[in-house]
């Protein structure tokens, strides 16, 4: 997979954004940007250039699930891969995320290995589809 793809990290906690950013850097993905909720992320995505989104669910302003729905409902962005990294662990929520078209779901707290596995799986599927 192209390690230079541009990843948007969306989380309201700056510490979690840094942790995800560090883990992605360790995996070789150094081209990242950050947003603190869906509202901030949306214009950045609209401006274009992003290849991947890692988002939290529970955020003020605009939640991750709303951001995901907005992405899937937008002609330009609808095929953008979205990985949800969230503390929300209810069965119904996972199903909601799946229905909304999430590409991967990671429950916090998580390990570097889990993040790598999910990323690899998503990229693998995209390569197969391509």
């Amino acid at each position, binding site marked *: 997979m192209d390690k230079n793809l541009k990843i948007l990290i969306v989380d309201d*906690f*700056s*510490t979690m954004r*840094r*942790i995800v950013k*560090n883990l992605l850097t360790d995996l070789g993905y150094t081209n990242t940007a950050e947003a603190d909720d869906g509202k901030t992320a949306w214009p950045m995505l609209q401006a274009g250039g992003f290849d991947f989104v890692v988002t939290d*669910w*529970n955020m003020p302003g605009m939640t991750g699930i709303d951001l995901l729905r907005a992405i899937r409902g937008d002609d330009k962005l609808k095929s953008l891969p979205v990985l949800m990294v969230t*503390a*929300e*662990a*209810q*069965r119904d*929520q*996972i*199903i909601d995320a*799946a229905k909304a078209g999430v590409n*991967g*779901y*990671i*429950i*916090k707290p*998580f390990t570097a290995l*889990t993040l790598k596995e999910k990323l690899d799986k998503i990229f693998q599927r995209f390569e197969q589809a391509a």
Partner: protein
Amino acid sequence: MSAVVVNIHARTVERDAPAIPDRAEYIGRLRELLSALEADDQALFEARLNQLMRLREEGLFVNLAKLTRELHQAVKDLNFDDRLQQLAGSELPDACLRLDYVVKLGEDAAHRTLDVCDDSRVLLDRLNGCVVSLDDIRERLPMVTQQPFRALTVANDIDQVEHTMREIGAGLRGHFSTIAQAQEYQDLSGQVIRRVITLVHNIEGALITLLRATNEGQRTPASPTASANGELAGPAVPGLSSGGQSQQDADALLAELGF
């Protein structure tokens, strides 16, 4: 408060209502009243009717006094004003400030740790540079046997690498102690959280007392549900059966859904 008063009153009346107080005395006095009536003795009839009415009034006063005492005691026992006012007026806002402080402590510690991780990455890059330098020195070693005067330069270069590595070592040691020290927030935040837990218990106790006083005590309070009002459940907490899924559960569920 008015609801409490009404309910205490209602409960007391309800409890005393089925039994007629002084039943035997009433029967005796009514018989005497009836005999006076049958004898057509007006003076005696009036006197006995008055006695009967006085008996009724006395009963009312006794009951009224009893109710007043019960009400007074209930209010005194609950200590509504002091306790609730203290909880709602100062301790709850105080708890919110304390929890804000805990959030800040944790966030600061996380950032300090992450800063040190960033700095350590820079040191690791320098360490990689040392490895490259050592490779370079190793390649130059055969030259030293041919041209011994080069030995001094090589020795200087080795000294330089050694110096750099010692610096990196000292730097990393310092970073480790900073990381370890950053964990001290846990002690402070733990203490603050424990205080807030005590406060929550106190509020719970006061609310249960209030419920009992308003005659709702028999009903067990419903346990709070995670997403009762459309709120997100948040992190799953061990020991609370909130139906939280593990990563494995989530993976299995998504696989079932065709992911």
